[in-house]
């Protein structure tokens, strides 16, 4: 961690002169609809479960936003979910596995592509054989669907969805507070605001990760390990980035379909945290990076000030 | 005896040929049809048609069109009648037309037994008729008939196919048990044979029947004997195919043969609804008129074995009957190919081929080239 120069202060909240270092990811969006919002959300939550970190989950996924019936392809309530992975192949494998296990299975669900991209990955194409020969392909008006008879009726699924390889993973904010309740309060208010930004997800539980990590570790085979520089209990015994008054740090990780979307989310988040102020929330905002040599996207906090 | 007429008045052959040549030379779109003649007549007719840039069809090609259509769309299993006589132990006869147009074949099959093949020899022959009449096989040993209307045949064959494949069947013209009986009949054959009339079931129906045979051959042996209403039309279609690449219903208007089974059909052109403005009609067989001779609404040059027909035309020639008055090559469906037929009578009349050739010579090659 480096790059801490002159700090800025907004509404009493210190903002490090640092940057979030993020990486290109393959990303996509799909639309999941169902008979009502409840079941659309059930399906979406199931599909985006265990998708916090690409390292161990194969992808990062989450709900982008709810879709009203007049926005969806079939006129029913829906949810837009996003997925990100290292590359198109990894993305397809995760999305289709989750599609097969979580959407195909979920009552009344349907699945539509929700991203136009030159490159595509399979959706229905990949799972159609579940229908054991009874699957029906329909192509019309430039769209291609698979219809799969299931016990409940018929599962309608678009054949493919577009992807972007210009997605961004690893946008982040480190919110440092005097205590855990304050850190959590800052995070929650930030997440609430950031969720309104289209094209981004915060893949960790509730959008928040407490176990921010550094790359590698002392044990062989560990790709990531605890970010000891930000652990308050190690302030004195490690090369800490924390000042004494900081008692708890939480991180928000952001993935987006574009760098702009990630930047927007971070900006909105910073504003929410600074608006909340240091008394109820965070006293300092930082960002995680690896020195700037690993990821091409550098989101400098000073550029994202409210 | 008069041999040529112009507007019903006797004329010399030369006069009639001159008049015919003039009529054809002045026409925009000649039609060469009828084609009820032997191979020599067909060859001469095709040569004339090429010269004229004519549309060509046979009077009876409607009876073979469903067969040709099904064949070229989906292929077929086809048998020779003589081989089926020796080989087929079970014969499924579809519909009512076989009883008339295939009476000879059915009689031959019902009065003989398979004598070739360990799978078929010695077990006799069973014939199952799906129709309203059994015709010539009525009452023979081994013949059963299941009542079935012509219009229901294609549905029934479809049901049999579904049954054989283990796919479900809905309510149809025949009950499930009967369908099962028919399916069992063909599936258990050592060598099965399906006899049907493509004209009766149509092109799509013929494809259904060919499909049944193809399905059966996955496990056992089966072939089909499509009965064509007109051997003569089939012969003309075959000759047309090697001559022009297409089986009849074609136009030489732009030299290279072009085929359209609807546009160039005889009925359409002769009725005046088509584009032809002048017709050459050859009707030189001994066996009477075409199956369904359409009204000819065009100025016509008629070459007919029946002098009355020739006399009634604008320009007419009485010609010898192919196969009766002179040695001829004719297609014979009993043989499944062309056969030479020796004259039974001698005739002073010219052959259709001779008149057509004389006419082509009068026109002096392709008319368009002269223009």
């Amino acid at each position, binding site marked *: 961690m480096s790059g801490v120069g002159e700090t800025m202060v907004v509404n009493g909240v210190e903002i490090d002169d640092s940057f979030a270092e993020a990486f290109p990811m393959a990303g996509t969006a799909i639309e999941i609809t169902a008979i009502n919002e409840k079941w659309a959300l059930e399906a979406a939550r199931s599909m985006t479960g265990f998708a916090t970190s690409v390292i161990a989950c194969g992808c990062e996924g989450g709900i982008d936003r709810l879709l009203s019936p007049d926005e969806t392809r079939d006129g029913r309530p829906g949810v837009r979910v996003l997925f990100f992975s290292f590359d198109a192949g990894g993305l397809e494998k995760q999305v289709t596995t989750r599609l097969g296990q979580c959407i195909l299975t979920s009552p009344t669900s349907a699945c539509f592509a929700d991203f136009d991209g030159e490159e595509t990955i399979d959706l229905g194409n990949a799972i159609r054989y579940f229908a054991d020969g009874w699957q029906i392909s329909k192509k019309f008006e430039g769209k291609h669907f698979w219809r799969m008879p299931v016990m409940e009726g018929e599962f309608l699924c678009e054949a493919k969805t577009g992807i972007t390889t210009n997605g961004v993973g690893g946008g982040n904010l480190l919110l440092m507070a005097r205590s855990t309740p304050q850190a959590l309060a800052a995070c929650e208010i930030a997440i609430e605001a950031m969720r309104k930004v289209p094209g981004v997800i915060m893949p960790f539980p509730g959008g928040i990760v407490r176990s921010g990590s550094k790359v590698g570790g002392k044990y062989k085979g560990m790709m990531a390990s605890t970010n000891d520089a930000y652990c308050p209990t190690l302030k004195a015994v490690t090369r800490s980035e924390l000042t004494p008054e900081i008692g708890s740090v939480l991180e928000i990780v952001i993935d987006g379909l574009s760098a702009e979307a990630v930047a927007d989310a971070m900006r909105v988040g910073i504003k929410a945290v600074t608006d909340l102020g240091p008394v109820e929330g965070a006293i300092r905002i930082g960002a995680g990076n690896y020195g700037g040599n690993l990821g091409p996207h550098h989101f400098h906090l000073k550029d994202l000030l409210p | 005896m008069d041999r040529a007429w112009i507007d019903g008045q006797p004329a010399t052959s030369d006069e009639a040929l001159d008049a015919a040549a003039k009529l054809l030379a002045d026409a925009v779109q000649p039609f060469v049809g009828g084609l009820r003649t032997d*191979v020599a007549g067909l060859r001469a007719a095709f040569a004339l048609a090429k010269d004229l840039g004519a549309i060509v069809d046979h009077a009876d090609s409607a009876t073979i069109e469903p067969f040709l259509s099904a064949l070229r769309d989906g292929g077929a299993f086809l048998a020779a009648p003589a*081989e089926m006589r020796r080989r087929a132990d079970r014969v499924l006869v579809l519909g009512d037309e076989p009883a008339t147009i295939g009476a000879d074949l059915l009689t031959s099959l019902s009065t003989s037994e398979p004598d070739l093949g360990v799978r078929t020899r010695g077990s006799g022959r069973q014939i199952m008729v799906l129709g309203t009449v059994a015709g010539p096989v009525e009452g023979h040993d081994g013949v059963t008939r299941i009542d079935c209307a012509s219009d229901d045949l294609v549905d029934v064959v479809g049901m049999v196919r579904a049954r054989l494949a283990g796919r479900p069947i809905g309510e149809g013209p025949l009950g499930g048990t009967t369908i099962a009986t028919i399916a069992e009949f063909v599936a258990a054959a050592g*060598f099965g044979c399906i006899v049907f009339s493509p004209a009766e079931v149509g092109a799509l129906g013929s494809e259904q029947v060919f499909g049944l045979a193809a399905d059966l051959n996955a496990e056992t042996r089966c072939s089909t004997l499509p009965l064509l209403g007109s051997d003569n039309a089939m012969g003309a279609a075959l000759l047309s195919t090697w001559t022009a690449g297409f089986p009849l219903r074609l136009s030489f208007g732009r030299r290279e043969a072009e085929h359209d089974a609807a546009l160039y059909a005889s009925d359409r052109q002769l009725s005046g609804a088509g584009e032809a403005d002048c017709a050459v009609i050859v009707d030189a067989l001994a066996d009477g008129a075409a199956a369904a001779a359409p009204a000819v609404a065009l100025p016509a040059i008629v070459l007919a074995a029946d002098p009355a027909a020739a006399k009634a035309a604008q320009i007419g020639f009485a010609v010898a009957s192919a196969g009766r008055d002179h040695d001829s090559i004719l297609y014979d469906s009993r043989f499944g190919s062309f056969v030479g037929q020796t004259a039974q009578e001698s005739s002073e009349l010219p052959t259709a081929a001779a008149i057509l050739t004389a006419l082509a010579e009068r026109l002096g090659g392709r008319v368009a080239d002269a223009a």
Partner: protein
Amino acid sequence: MLKRLSGGHVVDPATERDGVIDLYVEDGVIVDPPSDGRSADETIDCTGLVVMAGAIDIHSHIAGGHVNTARLLLPEWHRAFSSRPGETALSRVGWTTEETGLRYAQMGFTTVVEPAMAPSSALHAHLELADTPIIDKATLVVLGNDDLLLSMIRDGESENAIADYVAWTVASSRALGVKCINAGGSAAFKENVRKFEFDDVVPDYGVSSRQIVKTLQRAVTSLGIAHPLHVHCNNLGVPGASSDAIAATMRAAEGDPLHLAHIQFYGYGTEGKRRFSSRGRDLAALVNTTPEVTVDIGQVMFGQTVTISSDELRQFAGRAQASPRKSVIFDHEANGGGVVPFDYRRKSFHNALQWAIGMELFLLIEDPARVFFTTDHPNGAPFTTYPDIFALLMDRSVRQAWLEALPKAVREMTSLAEIEREYTLNEIATMTRAAPARLLGTADRGHLGAGAVADIAVYRPGADKAAMFGTAAFVLKDGEVVVRNGAVVKRTFGRALTLRPEPDKAMKARLDRYFDDKYGLSARWFEVPDGALGHNDPFKVVPCRA
């Protein structure tokens, strides 16, 4: 009228001439230079051109029921059916009888043999041939799956009786020779047998394929028919089994002449992960060491075509690969047959290796007088691909370019790249002129010596062998110039070369009864009547050996 072809480079292996020589033609035949000083009435300047006898194709399915069925089955390949620019998969093919004759003539071919005429479609085949302009033609009549022959063998009838039956069939059908197609296989298929080896027996007859082939070989020899029995072996195209079948058949020649057709389709092994490999080298070696056999290749070339065969059993099996997916299977008396469209794709491992195997055989069989130039038209490829094949045989760099376009896996399975041989003009002339005339017993052609019919092909030599052989500079047929600069300038009608063995009267009577009793047919229907073909003098009789 005396014509002189002056200054041309005559390549005529039959008369062992290879140099600049003037040729003289009078009354449709080649004559010696006039000794009386008489000058030619017409001189055709052949300076700088290559002069050969008209080429002879010994195995090309150009006429008859199955060929016409292929036309019926595939109207979509007719030029008139395609949208512009008017090219269809087979639009280059001589699809009609007229185009067939013209296109052969343009390449300098003047005699073509239709090799699979069923006795029952002899008249049909001859009608089509009579409508095929310019070229002379001949037919081979098919026996070997017919009830009568199988019954005669089963019943132990005498060789004489069998020869009489063969003689009747040849005479009635106006054939030049006898062909045997998957001997017994079609008959077995009618009994629902789906695989048939050389020593398998036909159910109900107890007669093996080997017995049928040997019986017919003896009959053909005893009748003095010049062309050896023309055999289409069992298991065509089946990896492993095909090469076993042809090896067994070749060994069964036992010192007597035997011709094996389209052997490329039998050069298939089962090595490699795709269980498909080349046995071209082994097969060529076997041909090289079996001097009594002759072979033709049946080269595969890439593109859409249609397979036409009286091997009903194998055509039935081939239906699964039909492209487009439609085919016609015939259950006729005797052989029956099948018409199955096929698309040989350069990118297909199997098809590309088939191509390579054909090339290996062409190049590894040493004696050009025992290997013949065929694609088994249209089975391996349409005959219009011949110019490309000439180029492949004569120019190693052309082969190399083709090889490089093939899938890598194929290049690893063939030794073709290592073969350096390039056919010479003399070898080409041997393979396509001198040798086929000898094989067919037609002494009046295949060479440019005095007395030969004046069927002459004159080519413009050049580095591009495909261009050279694609369009002849001149072609003379019976002494008349029919092609000039690759264009047909005159349409003549060639004759059908036939044998006329005298049929035995008793056999004739027996056959009258047999066809009537057993099939309800008249034996007369199998005959091709003299007046049937609409030309004066439509046949030319080739004598049998004494």
